[in-house]
């Protein structure tokens, strides 16, 4: 891994008896784009604000580029920040907003104007300078906020739910623009979000948080393919949870059926577990003879979602075991799938995850 830009060690934040953050440790590499992902109240914004020094932690240390900044006020740290509300100064023009941090650095007026133009061009608003924030759309305001945060060339960019106040369409476009901008500038970036899709598409690494603790840190692929906790499995993407018992390290019994699964070493035999599979991993076509985990099912419900159908499958040997699976429109047509159809599916063992119930 590249050199650490930020080292967070044993960070805790308490409000009275309530622990908002419990003993968080985390490293963020230089130039990395990291997302803090979790449901509301999981502590992700608290962690971001502690890193910025806006709401200092109760205990623990933060080092930025080797410098201990744990106790420093925000103005003595090195970061730029964009808030969900953008916090643009409504009575200043876009130019004055973007140049706000430059003016107090006593730079020459010409140099400031040049830098502001450069930044506005960078965020794709070269002509917005004389306008006031109220005259801009939400997406444009967001870009101005980004330009203002980047104006002083901070080595760390903090984004606190920057896209959640925008329309779905604008949000999609800005995801790519922010990511591209970050890649061009190479600035280490932390973004807080509760939107898993946003985290999956933008982040180099995702930090999944739950109840004031980090559940898992990994690349989007790792988080999606190999969730290490039931919470991560459930929170990121869709996941079927089939309650059962662990028969052998690599066998789980669900409703009278036995499934092969990757060998588990952290779980005790005959323990209650959940067998997990993502709806898109359920296999239907071209099942070879003797394939593992073959299950005859009945289609109990079929929801048209647009590009595909989400089917509710009832296991015929054990009708109270159900799971969802994503079927493409082609598949529905080719196999003539409809409500009540009987067919066989397979749950590929390498796609199965097992968590303690």
């Amino acid at each position, binding site marked *: 891994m590249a050199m650490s830009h930020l080292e967070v060690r044993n960070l805790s934040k308490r409000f009275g008896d309530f622990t908002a953050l419990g003993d968080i440790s985390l490293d963020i590499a230089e130039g990395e784009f990291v997302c803090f992902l979790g449901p509301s109240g999981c502590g992700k914004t608290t962690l971001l604000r502690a890193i910025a020094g806006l709401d200092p932690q109760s205990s*623990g240390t933060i080092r930025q580029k080797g410098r201990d900044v744990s106790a420093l006020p*925000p103005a003595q740290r090195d970061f730029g*920040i964009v808030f969900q509300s953008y916090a643009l*100064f*409504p009575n200043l023009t876009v130019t004055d907003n973007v140049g706000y941090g430059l003016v107090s650095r006593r730079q020459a007026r010409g140099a400031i104007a040049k830098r502001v133009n450069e930044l506005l061009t960078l965020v794709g608003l070269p002509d917005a300078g004389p306008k006031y924030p*109220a005259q801009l759309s939400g997406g444009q305001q967001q870009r101005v906020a980004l330009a203002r945060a980047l104006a002083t060339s901070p080595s760390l960019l903090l984004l606190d739910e920057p896209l959640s106040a925008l329309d779905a369409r604008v949000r999609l476009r800005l995801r790519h623009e922010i990511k591209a901008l970050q890649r061009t500038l190479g600035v280490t970036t932390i973004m807080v979000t509760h939107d898993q899709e946003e985290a999956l598409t933008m982040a180099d690494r995702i930090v999944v948080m739950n109840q004031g603790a980090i559940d898992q840190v990994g690349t989007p692929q790792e988080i999606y393919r190999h969730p290490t906790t039931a919470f991560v499995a459930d929170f990121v993407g869709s996941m079927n949870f089939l309650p059962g018992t662990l028969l052998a390290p690599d066998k789980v019994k669900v409703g009278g059926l036995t499934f092969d699964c990757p060998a588990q070493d952290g779980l005790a035999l005959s323990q209650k577990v959940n067998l997990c599979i993502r709806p898109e991993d359920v296999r239907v076509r071209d099942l070879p003879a003797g394939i593992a985990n073959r299950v005859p099912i009945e289609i109990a419900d079929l929801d048209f979602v647009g590009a595909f159908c989400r089917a509710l499958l009832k296991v015929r040997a054990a009708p109270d075991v159900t799971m969802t699976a994503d079927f493409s429109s082609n598949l529905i047509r080719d196999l003539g799938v409809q409500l009540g159809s009987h067919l066989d599916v397979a749950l590929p063992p390498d796609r199965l995850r097992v968590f303690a119930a």
Partner: protein
Amino acid sequence: MSLAAPAPRSVLRANLSRDDLMMRAGVVVLAGMLLLIVGLPLWALLAKGFEDREGRFIGLANYLSYFSTPALFDSALNSFEVAAAATLIVVPLAFLYAYALTRTVLPARWLFQGISLIPIFAPSLLPGLALVYLFGNQGFFKGMLGGPIYGFDGILIAQVFYCFPHATLILATALATADARLYEAADALGASKLRVFFTVTLPGAKYGLISAALVVFTLVITDFGIAKVIGGNFNVLATDVYKQVIGQQNFSMGAVVGMMLLAPAALAFVIDRVVQRKQVALLTARAVPLSPKPRLGRDAFFTAFCTVISFGILAILGMAAWGSLIKYWPYNLSLTLGNYQFANFDANGWDSYFNSLRMAAGAAIFGTVLMFVGAWLNEKTKGFGAVRGIVQFLAFLPMAVPGIVLGLGYIFFFNAPNNPLNFLYATMAILVINTVAHYYTVGHLTATTALKQIDPEFESVSASLKVPVWRTFARVTAPICLPAILDIAIYLFVNAMTTVSSVIFLYAPDTKLASVAAVNIEEAGATAAAAALCIVIVITSATVKALHILADRFLLGRLQAWRRR
């Protein structure tokens, strides 16, 4: 990740930035100032009640003698009686008027609204003077009341005039925030108009009604000017304080009466705070604002009602204005400007008016700066809860303290020979300070509300850009809050022009104010000149308010182009 035992943790003490230190120092200074101008004078008053004339501690002796002197205790009962009666009359009238303004289609609504505000621009003795002209010993309608106007009836009528705009403002605000969807739902369910009124309208205005009742009750019980002019032998608490202090020089008993006056006002204030806290936002972001549709019968009734009330207000004002222009009431009704030659009635002549202007301008400037910067410091300083709590308490205290009580506290505190601030006594400065303190709460609340409406992250952004917090205050926060800042300044100016109660103990011969001069002139029997001075005050404060409205509409529109989309 290592599983080694966690190292023992020390609790982090975050360093304070220069901004943090500066703001904390500001909050400490603010707390100190409020302590000097609010806390300690009240403390001095409290202490005085337990001392004899020579300043020796005598425990509850003054209080015992107060309660065993029927003449004094009767005043308390009188005060309650007149306050309760005024509340019962003003609140329903103001409710109907506010309902007309907000829920019906009135012709010339702005005119009715403007007329209802007139009493705010007058010193409270103005309605008293007008009633003397109308119903006094030589009044036009002397026989109509069946008894003398001096006393309960006179005070009551004048108080209704004086308190009406305050109740109307509160109730109009309460009624203006209604969700049209509730009415549509009630209509769709087939509820009768009357049922809708009792199940939707009235509950929605409940807190406004309670608030208006408490405000009127407090205003009446603490007002001094009206009872002074038209009370006759009907003594109330506020005039008793004045008589004990100015008449009999019995400061200790004055302090005891002051405490009697403080108790109901403070109680009303506490009840109001508790009630307001229970109020949840009736108007959610998704509410649809209600805009009244024309309905002939209702609109005609309310137009007639508002016309009658407006006529009453204008009649009282007009009577005072006419009286001020008459040569010798009621024998020579020819017109003259002679009553405006104030030098013929009071040694200060017009100087007292210019003193008032200077005092009002001073209070508006210094008060607005102190209140706005103070509210900003208290809102934006991080941590430091204890000191900020003290500031909050001291900022709210003046609302619960009658002016005459605060004025008395000022005598005891600033006139004490061992007080190093004693040099302020009998200067213009102490009048300004006293007025700022007296009206601190409303200004502080206005500023706090305005500050709460702007994005809380401005300071965070500034810190991240390494811009000092005072720069963001000057360049962003204050300009955004300019309308609220102007509101505070005008509020202070108008109140400083009209106030009598607090400053009556504090003026020196060369710093006498117009409102106080009017009281003195009236005392000397020159009713017409007193009315003339009141009219000058009304014209001044109403003009300033009109300029404010014009500035708000035209100047601010140009200065604040950024508000436009």
